[in-house]
C-alpha cells in the first residue's frame, strides 16, 4: 500500500477500514472487557474473617477460577509496570535518590515473596474491613513483588545505559524531560523490560497459586482461583481434581504464551539498537492480528493523539531557557553530606529498633535457632543446584550443539519454567506418604522442581552462542572428551550457566516456604528449615517470629548472592566473555 505521508488525512480512512482480522479481534476485545468488569466486581464482595468461601471441586468452575487468577496476575503486572517506571526513573535521574533506592531494591529483591504476603496481609485486611478486597490486595501485592523488582532493575540499568549520543541528540533537538523519557529512555529500555517482564510473569504463576490460599492467624482464606482450588483438592485428597487444576493451568499458560509472551517479545524487537537480526523468526499470529486488525489501529491512533497532546502540554510548561548556571560546588557537597548523614541516622535508629525488638519479643536463643534452620535450607539449596547442574549441563550442551533441536525445545522449556511447580507438589507428596520416605530428604527436590529449568534454558542458550569456530578448532586439534569439556565447553557456557544458576537459586529460596512443609489431606510432612519455620509462624500469626524468620532468610539470600554469585558473575564478565 503506497502511503503518501504528505496528505495524512486522506490516507487515514484507508488504513482504518475494517479488515478480516477485525472479525476475530472485535469479539475478543468486547468479551475481554465484559469479563474484566464482571470479575473485578467479584473482588469486592462483603466478607467477614472466619467465614468460609465456598470453593467447589467441580471442574466446570475452573474457567471462572482461572479468570480470577489471570485477573490478579494482570492487575499486579500493571501496578508493577507503573511502579518500576517511576522508581527506576527516580533512581536514574537523581544521584542522591540513587544512593538510597538502589540498595533498597537490592534488599527487596532478596526478601522471599511469600514473606511479603505474610507480613502485609493484616494491613491490607484492616484497610478494607468487611470486604474480601483486603485479601485480594494482599495476594495481588505478593504477585506484584514477584515481578516489580526484576523489572525495576532492568529499567534502571537501561536508563543508565542510554547511549550518550542519543541523549545529546535529544537535548540538541529540544526534547523536554517528559518527551525524552517517552521518546528515548522508555523505548531504549523496552526490549530488556519486555524480556524481564515476561520472565517475571512466568515466575509469577507460582506465586499466584501460592498466594490465593492465605493462612493468617489460624484461619485460611481461600480466594476463588486455581490456587485455592488445588488447596481444597489437597485437603480432600482428591487426585483427579489436582489433575484438572494442572490441565487448567496448562491452558492458561498456553494462552499467556501465545497471546502475550510471544507477541510482546516480537514487538519489542524493533526497539533494539543495532543491525537487523538475520535469522528473524516468523511473527507470532497474535501480533499479526493486532497489527492487521483496523480496530487496534484506531486505538493506537487515539493513543498517539493523546500522547502528542500531553507532550505539547509538558513542552509548554518546560519551554524557555531551561538550564541555569550550576550551583556552586560547595553547596552540592554540603547537601550531599546532609543527605548521607540523614540516611545514616535513620539506619542507626532502625538498627536500634530491631535490636530492641529482638531482645524483647523473641530472645537471642531463638535467633540462633533460626540461623541454624537457615543453614539447613542453605545446604539444601547448594546440594540441589549442584545436582541440577550435574544433570542439566550435559543435557543442555547436548541440545545446544544441535541448533534445530534447540530452537524446537526452547519454547517447551520456557513453558516448563512458567508452569507453577506447586501444582505438582501433591503428586510428589502423595508418593512420599505412600512410600513412607524420609521427608527431610525427599521434600527437598520440591524446592528446585520449578526453577531447574532456568539452568537448562541458559546452558542451551550459552552453547548456542558458542562460536562454531571454537568447535572446529577443537576438532582440528583432536581435543576430545574431558579436555573438550574443560578447555572449551565449560568456560564457554560459564557466564550463561551462572545466570541460570542465580535465577534457580533465588527461586529455590522462595520455594522453600511452600515446599519444606506440605500437606496431603490430614497428613502434614515437614522438613527442618527456615522455609518451614516461616510457614508455621505465618499460620500461627506470630508476627515477631515471622519477622525474624523473614529477616534471617533475607540475610542468607543477600550473603549467598554477595559471597558466591556476584563473584562468579564478575569472574564470568572479566575472563570468560565471548567477544
Amino acid at each position: 500500500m503506497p502511503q503518501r505521508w504528505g496528505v495524512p488525512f486522506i490516507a487515514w480512512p484507508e488504513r482504518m477500514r475494517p479488515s478480516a482480522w477485525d472479525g476475530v479481534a472485535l469479539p475478543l476485545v468486547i468479551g475481554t472487557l465484559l469479563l474484566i468488569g464482571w470479575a473485578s466486581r467479584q473482588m469486592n464482595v462483603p466478607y467477614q474473617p472466619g467465614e468460609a468461601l465456598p470453593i467447589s471441586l467441580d471442574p466446570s468452575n475452573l474457567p471462572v477460577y482461572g479468570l480470577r487468577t489471570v485477573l490478579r496476575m494482570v492487575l499486579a503486572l500493571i501496578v508493577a509496570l507503573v511502579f518500576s517506571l517511576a522508581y527506576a526513573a527516580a533512581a536514574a535521574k537523581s544521584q542522591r535518590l540513587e544512593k538510597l533506592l538502589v540498595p533498597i531494591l537490592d534488599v527487596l529483591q532478596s526478601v522471599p515473596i511469600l514473606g511479603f504476603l505474610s507480613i502485609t496481609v493484616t494491613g491490607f485486611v484492616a484497610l478494607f474491613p468487611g470486604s474480601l478486597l483486603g485479601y485480594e490486595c494482599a495476594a495481588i501485592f505478593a504477585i506484584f513483588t514477584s515481578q516489580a523488582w526484576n523489572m525495576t532493575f532492568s529499567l534502571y540499568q537501561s536508563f543508565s545505559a542510554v547511549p550518550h549520543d542519543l541523549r545529546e541528540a535529544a537535548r540538541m533537538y529540544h526534547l523536554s524531560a517528559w518527551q525524552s523519557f517517552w521518546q528515548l529512555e522508555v523505548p531504549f529500555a523496552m526490549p530488556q523490560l519486555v524480556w524481564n517482564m515476561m520472565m517475571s510473569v512466568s515466575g509469577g504463576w507460582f506465586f499466584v497459586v501460592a498466594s490465593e490460599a492465605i493462612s493468617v492467624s489460624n484461619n485460611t482464606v481461600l480466594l476463588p482461583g486455581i490456587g485455592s482450588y488445588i488447596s481444597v483438592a489437597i485437603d480432600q485428597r482428591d487426585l483427579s481434581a489436582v489433575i484438572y487444576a494442572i490441565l487448567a493451568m496448562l491452558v492458561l499458560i498456553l494462552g499467556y504464551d501465545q497471546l502475550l509472551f510471544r507477541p510482546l517479545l516480537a514487538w519489542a524487537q524493533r526497539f533494539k539498537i543495532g543491525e537487523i537480526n538475520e535469522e528473524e523468526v516468523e511473527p507470532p499470529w497474535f501480533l499479526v492480528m493486532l497489527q492487521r486488525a483496523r480496530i487496534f489501529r484506531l486505538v493506537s491512533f487515539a493513543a498517539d493523539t493523546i500522547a502528542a497532546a500531553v507532550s505539547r502540554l509538558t513542552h509548554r510548561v518546560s519551554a524557555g531557557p531551561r538550564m541555569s548556571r550550576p550551583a556552586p560546588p560547595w553547596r552540592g557537597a554540603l547537601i550531599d553530606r546532609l543527605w548521607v548523614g540523614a540516611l545514616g541516622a535513620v539506619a542507626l535508629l532502625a538498627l536500634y529498633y530491631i535490636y530492641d525488638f529482638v531482645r524483647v519479643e523473641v530472645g537471642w536463643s531463638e535467633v540462633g535457632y533460626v540461623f541454624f534452620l537457615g543453614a539447613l535450607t542453605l545446604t539444601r539449596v547448594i546440594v540441589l543446584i549442584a545436582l541440577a547442574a550435574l544433570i542439566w549441563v550435559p543435557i543442555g550442551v547436548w541440545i545446544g550443539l544441535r541448533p534445530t533441536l534447540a530452537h524446537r525445545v526452547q519454547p517447551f522449556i520456557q513453558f516448563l519454567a512458567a508452569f507453577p511447580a506447586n501444582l505438582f507438589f501433591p503428586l510428589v507428596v502423595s508418593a512420599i506418604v505412600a512410600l513412607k520416605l524420609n521427608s527431610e530428604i525427599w521434600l527437598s527436590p520440591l524446592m528446585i522442581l520449578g526453577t531447574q529449568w532456568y539452568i537448562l534454558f541458559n546452558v542451551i542458550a550459552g552453547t548456542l552462542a558458542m562460536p562454531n569456530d571454537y568447535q572446529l578448532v577443537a576438532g582440528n586439534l583432536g581435543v576430545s572428551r574431558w579436555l573438550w569439556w574443560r578447555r572449551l565447553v565449560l568456560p564457554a557456557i560459564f557466564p550463561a550457566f551462572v545466570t541460570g544458576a542465580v535465577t534457580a537459586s533465588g527461586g529455590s529460596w522462595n520455594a522453600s516456604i511452600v515446599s519444606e512443609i506440605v500437606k496431603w489431606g490430614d497428613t502434614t510432612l515437614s522438613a527442618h528449615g527456615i522455609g518451614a519455620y516461616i510457614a508455621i509462624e505465618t499460620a500461627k500469626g506470630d508476627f515477631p517470629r515471622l519477622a525474624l524468620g523473614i529477616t534471617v532468610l533475607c540475610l542468607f539470600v543477600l550473603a549467598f548472592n554477595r559471597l558466591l554469585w556476584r563473584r562468579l558473575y564478575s569472574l564470568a564478565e572479566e575472563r570468560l566473555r565471548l567477544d
Partner: protein
Amino acid sequence: MRNLTHPPAPPPQLLAASGITKTYQTPDHSGRLVIDNIDFALAEGEIVAILGKSGSGKSTFLRILAGLTSPSSGVVEYRGQTVTSPAVGIAMVFQTFALFPWLTVLGNVELGLEAQGVPRTERRQRAIAAIDLIGLDGFESAYPKELSGGMRQRVGFARALVVNPDVLLLDEPFSALDVLTAETLRGDISDLWLARRIPTKGIIVVSHNIEEAVEMADRIIIFGSDPATIRADIPVPMARPRDVNSAAFRRLVDEVYTLLTTVPGREGGKRGPRGETIEIGYRVPDVSIQQLVGLLEALVAQPYEGRADLPNLAESEHLTTDDLVVLVESLQLLGFGHVAGGDIEVTPAGRMFAAADLQHRKQIFAEHIRRSLPLVAHIRKVLDERPGHAAPEGRFLAELEDHLSEEEAQRVLETVINFGRYAELFAYDYDRGVLSLENP
C-alpha cells in the same frame, strides 16, 4: 539586526566564544585542564573546520558551542545571546548519526519539530521537504537499521536541516563512512550550501581529515592538545569548487600536516614531538607496535628510502589521518623519525631498528622507550626497587589519574604495558592486575 550607525562592518558574527576553558575534576580535586582559554568566532557565510589529533578536546569545544556542555569559564554567544543550553537556531550532526532506531526516517526527521510543538500537518510537510532535499525520498518509512551508513547520515542531516538552523555544527560527520560514500555526501552538502538551498548561515565542522577540511572550509583552526588551545588559524582563500590536485591545494595540505605533527619546541626538559615537556602523565599515543614496525619497514624500503611526503604516505599506505598522526608522533617520540616541511625522515636509529632481527629489535625498542617515556622508566624503577619485583597496576593508575582522566589513564597504561611486554622490560598478569619482572 545590524546597527547602521557603524557602517563598514565586518560580516556579522553568528556565534562567538571568548575565554573558554574547561576543567575536569580529578580524584585529588586538583582539576585537569582540557581546554585553555580559547577565543573563537564564526562569521555569517563562513565554513570553519576544526582540526586536531584525537582527544585534543575539539569535540568538547564543539559541545560547548552547542550548549550541551557548560564551560568552566568563558562565554558563548549566539547572535548576542549567551548560550547556556542548546539554542533554537543551532543544530548538530553527530559522528555516530545518533538516530532513534525505533523511529522511521520520517519520525526521526520530525523529532525536532515535534519537540518544538509544530502542528502535525506542517511538521509532516517540512519533514518531507527536508527528506527530498537531502535525497532520501522513497525511504520515509524505513527504519535506520535498514539503511546504509551513508543513508543514515543523510537522515542525520535532514533532521538537522528541517529545523532551519542558522548554525550547523558537524561533529566528524563523515568519519564513520567509507571514503566514496563520504565524498558523495560531502559534495552534496557543499552543493546545497553553495547554491544557498539551505537557510544555514554558518557551518563549523570538526574533522580529522585534512583534505576534507581544506576542501570544505573558508578557515581552518588547528587545535593543540593537553590542554586544547588554538595553535593556528589558517584562511583558505581558494575559489570553489576546489581542485584537490592543484599546487595551492597540495601546499596547504602539506602545511596542515606539518602543523599537526610538529610544533616549534619549548625549552628545557624532555620533549615530545610537539616540543612539549614529557612527564609521567604524557599521553602516550594509542599505537599498535605491529603498525609502527610495519610503517618503519615501509619507510626505509622503496620508493621512500627513508623520506616520505606525509599526505602521499597516508594515501599509499591506506592510513587515515588520525592513524598517521599517531604513528608519526610515536616514531618521533621514540627517536625513530623526524618531521619537517610535510615530510617524515627516518633517523639512523630508525634505520638500525628496521634492519635488525626480532630479538635485536626488542633490545633497541626497550632502550628507546626507557629513554623517551618517563612512565616506562618509572615503572621499571619501581619494580627494580621493590623487594618482590612486583607492583599492582592500581598504583600506577592512581599516579596517572593525577594528570589524565580515568579512562585515558587506563588507556595509556594499557599501551605502555604493551610496549613493556614487547620490549620484555616487565611482565603483566591480567588476572591479578600485577606488573612484575617475572619472566612468564
